[in-house]
């Protein structure tokens, strides 16, 4: 951007003409000035990045080696080396419990959510009357996102006297107190996450629209049935979109916080059954006042998410097909 504007000839006596020698004479101060202006126009974003993301992140990296308890002043913070990290890996059963809860949640909820999203997208990928309305309706839960209100509603649907048990009662089934039962609370959260499949569904829909219809026509001519078409055309053609959704939803799944927080009243209960990683981190930082330890947990989490993402990308080579070169080059 900056280079194109400087080379464009402009009026004005001290403006460089579009020649090499003129360039040499006039460019340097001009470029500095332009550069400065560029940085100034960039500054709202840059300040935001530094102030809200980069500096706090670096601070938390520093704090993860300290005993910071958030109530003390900065001068009272003591460097404790790797003690926080050692405690996490050696001396904190609740940490590993939270890891286990989070992994269970992500490993079950993410594939099911993607399957639901793909299934509904396939159903809605037909030109029927009113299909737009259904797309909107299925997307609606995702608009509510990680909202607190939704989690509260969920808690009321899935408690002992909730609507869900009322529904089961119609068939003479006596339900569990789902959200308040340590055996079922995490599953209740999973269902909530799966139900919000709208965002990946919309992306799947867009992906499905991109699959060239000639492929299906050719397959029909060859006598392929719907299952064969799905397996040999839809899935491979959709694999980049599946990959994209998988990466995003996996990261989202590991970071689940709001619904667990609301459902358990901020405790991860009953009996730690909904103690998601981020919730455990929050409790350590803000309830137990161990912000140094919580910072260390956050950094291990960041590295872990990074590793998961890299692993996903490296597997992508084997099953993601990019149909480059033919129609949309």
């Amino acid at each position: 951007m900056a280079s194109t504007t400087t080379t464009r000839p402009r009026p004005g006596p001290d403006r460089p003409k579009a020649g090499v020698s003129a360039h040499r004479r006039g460019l340097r101060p001009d470029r500095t000035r332009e550069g400065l202006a560029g940085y100034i126009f960039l500054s709202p974003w840059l300040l935001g990045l530094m102030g809200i993301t980069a500096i706090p992140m670096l601070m938390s990296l520093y704090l993860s080696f300290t005993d910071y308890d958030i109530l003390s002043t900065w001068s009272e913070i003591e460097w404790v080396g790797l003690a926080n990290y050692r405690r996490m890996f050696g001396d904190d059963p609740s940490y590993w419990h939270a890891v286990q809860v989070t992994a269970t949640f992500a490993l079950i909820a993410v594939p099911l959510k993607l399957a639901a999203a793909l299934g509904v997208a396939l159903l809605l990928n037909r030109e029927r009357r009113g299909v737009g309305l259904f797309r909107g309706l299925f997307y609606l839960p995702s608009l509510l996102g990680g909202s607190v209100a939704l989690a509260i509603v969920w808690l009321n649907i899935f408690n002992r006297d909730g609507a869900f048990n009322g529904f089961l009662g119609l068939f003479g089934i006596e339900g569990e107190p789902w959200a308040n039962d340590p055996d079922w609370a995490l599953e209740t959260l999973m269902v909530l996450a799966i139900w919000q499949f709208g965002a990946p569904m919309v992306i799947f829909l867009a992906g499905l629209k991109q699959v060239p219809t000639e492929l299906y026509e050719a397959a029909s001519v060859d006598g392929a049935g719907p299952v064969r078409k799905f397996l040999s055309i839809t899935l491979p053609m959709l694999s980049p979109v599946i990959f994209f959704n998988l990466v995003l939803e996996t990261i989202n799944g590991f970071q689940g916080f709001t619904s667990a927080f609301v459902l358990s009243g901020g405790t991860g209960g009953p009996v730690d059954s909904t103690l998601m990683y981020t919730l455990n981190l929050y409790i350590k930082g803000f309830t137990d006042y161990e912000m140094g330890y919580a910072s260390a947990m956050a950094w291990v989490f960041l590295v872990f998410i990074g590793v998961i993402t890299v692993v996903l990308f490296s597997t992508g080579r084997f099953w993601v097909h990019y149909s480059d070169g033919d129609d949309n080059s």
Partner: protein
Amino acid sequence: MHPALHPRRRFLRVVTAALIALPLALAGCGGDDDSSSDSDGPVELSIFWWGGDARAKLTEDALALYTKKHPNVTFKKTWQANQGYFDKLATLTAGNDAPDIFQIDDNFLTEYASRGATLDLTKYRESGKLDVSKFPESLWKYGEVDGKLAGLAFGENTQGLVYNRTKLQAANVPEPTTGMSWEAFISWAEQAGTATKVAGTQDPSADYKAFWVWLRQQGKDLYKGTDLGFTKDDVQKWFELWKGARDRKVTPSADIIHEGNATDITKQLVVTNKALTSWVWVNQMPELAKNTKDSLGVIAYPGDPSAQWARASMYFSVFRGSKHKDVAVDVINFLANDPEAGKLLGTERGLPSNLDTRKSVAEAVTDPNMKLSIQVETDLGTKFGKAPQVPPKGHSTVRSELIKAAESAQYGRATPAAAAEAFFNAAKAAIK
């Protein structure tokens, strides 16, 4: 240079200067310039408390009265429910942006005081600017941590067992009485539960204050200095006592107990009609009564009532970084000692700390539930034992660990022995 460039260059210069000056200005904000000597200049104090609508109304009225008497002082008032209050307060404190005056209780006082987040009020007390001469001595001293006066006790209360009188009367069951043994109480609850078809009592095994009273009746305590005041066996006995009650169906099912373990007043089982009794603080009676149509009664926890004590229901503390410390202290002094303010505030935060105010409020009160809570507390006041020390650092973690362990026993995931062991170890780690 070319004159046409001047405006732009000037603009750049201004912006650059602003960018350099901004961090300096921000740094200046953090500075602790105590301009409290300037007592006539306009002062805006921020004040933060937890509580319900009723408390908000009373407190706002009392603060308005202060502004009326000191027109230069205005207030930025923030209040919210108890849940999440301390998370927010901690965050504000971390940002050195805590309110000038904040409400706090003994669950957190040591956490804040030991880290110097609260202003030491000792010199104000000694100079009489903070007047505690009309307070019971044990009450204001319950605000001392490591010899520093970290908070001004604002209201006195004690543990109260609240029961649903309407349901008991309808089923012709006698009301429970103060001084019943724990066994007798559980038997009473069993009988009352059968007669009313409502679970006899909330299971208090996750409730630190019930556990605490019970411990004191065994000659133990929750804390002894910076150590635990009980053994693993004590916890196990406590959990077994309530396992026995659960086996006799005296308590509701584990998920209902779990609902009642929330601190929210509106979720207490005695007002959600899922149990006949709930384990609360006496001053919560009027607020509980607002959440049910039934008439409520309140007594001491079972066992010897002398195990209970006059607890400071909460405190007002001044933030160490307040820019108007003297004015802030004057405000809490006013709220605690001014007769008119006392009349406005009533007993909503507990019995007024100032005994003169307490007397006049008790005489003037009309709300029957408030009247009852005053009466019960005054009656118990003659039997109170010595107050324990303010809980040490890590107390809030001890509380949540007790809930976790007790619930694991309630849901049948652990035996009382295993749950006791888990709690004991976690509690020991939390306060070390």
